[in-house]
């Protein structure tokens, strides 16, 4: 039988090496891109939030106003989460692998849970209230059923996706926890 270790180490593969100048440049570009991604969201919210505020203040139907307020709240939480959980807030590179992997999984799980809890939950009743308000203002019943039904489907589909992703992260953490607990000295 061939020796897998010998065979592995004989391979003459080298990473395409970058010069320090190239790495510095690439690193600066990456940082700029990450910052720009964050700022795009903040800038969009600067436009979107006053717009929502005006709609809340000017709409005459209280159902619509409450619905819009809930949607606005969901949006605010999304922006807060983006700022809090952005990659610049976590540095795990120098940790040993178990700690780094655990930290990454836990961050991902927390993000998913938080999205489910704080973004989807206010979003759904918000949209339903807006739809009810629109129906009260004279929209047809079929329009109401289609929109609310579609939104309910979308909501439960997103909930299912998030729950599945959380289950996967939990499985990975369980496997890691058992291995570490059993095998650590």
């Amino acid at each position, binding site marked *: *039988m*061939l020796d*897998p*270790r010998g*065979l*592995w*180490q004989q*391979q*003459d*593969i*080298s*990473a*395409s*090496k*970058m*010069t*320090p100048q190239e*790495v*510095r440049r*690439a*690193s600066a570009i*990456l940082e700029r891109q990450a910052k720009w991604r964050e700022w795009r969201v903040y800038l969009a919210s600067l436009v979107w939030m006053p717009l929502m505020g005006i709609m809340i203040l000017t709409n005459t139907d209280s159902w619509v106003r409450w619905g819009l307020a809930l949607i606005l709240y969901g949006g605010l939480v999304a922006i807060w989460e983006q700022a809090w959980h952005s990659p610049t807030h976590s*540095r*795990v*590179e*120098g*940790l*040993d*692998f*178990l*700690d*780094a*992997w655990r930290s*990454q999984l836990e961050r*991902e799980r927390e993000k998913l849970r938080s999205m489910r809890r704080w973004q989807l939950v206010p979003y759904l009743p918000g949209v339903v209230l807006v739809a009810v308000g629109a129906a009260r203002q004279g929209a047809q019943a079929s329009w109401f059923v289609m929109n609310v039904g579609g939104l309910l489907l979308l909501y439960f589909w997103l909930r299912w996706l998030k729950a599945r*992703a959380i289950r996967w992260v939990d499985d*990975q953490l369980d*496997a*890691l926890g058992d*291995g*570490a607990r*059993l*095998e*650590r*000295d």
Partner: protein
Amino acid sequence: MFTSAMAEFGSVIGRLVRGYEYDRTQQDELSQEIQIALWRSFVIFDGRCSLRTWVFRIAHNTAVAHIARSRRRKAVRWITLDELAELPQGADAEAAVGEAMMLEQLYDAIRRLRPPDAQIMLLWLEGEEASAISEITGLSAGAVATRVHRVKAALARQFRQGGQAHA
């Protein structure tokens, strides 16, 4: 420090990148990510572990973050070492005794394993001692010995099957 680290560990990083990432374009991207992470990390490197251990930690942690992101895109299912040992050989098991095919099988096994197991396999293939693997991974020496034993058993079973098919 960055230049000397790349000169010393460039080929290790090259194999690691190929081990974790199948897609050629993604390999270049991952290689770049690792070099940037290394470059940034030297600011906080305090010499409490060897340069070798540090480079391995940075490279593996960056690679695993990278594949975790692409796993979300491709819905990959990772397997355990036990499942790897139980995997049936393909119809072309005869050809697997060739060096190139054996290497492909190794890469395939690494990409299918869960990240902690893939890391142990990669470090063992690179010829690292149990104590060094322990320092890099955070697992105890006993835990590393157990997992290395399972890596060896899984690989032996895989390649013995190939050899028998050839005979």
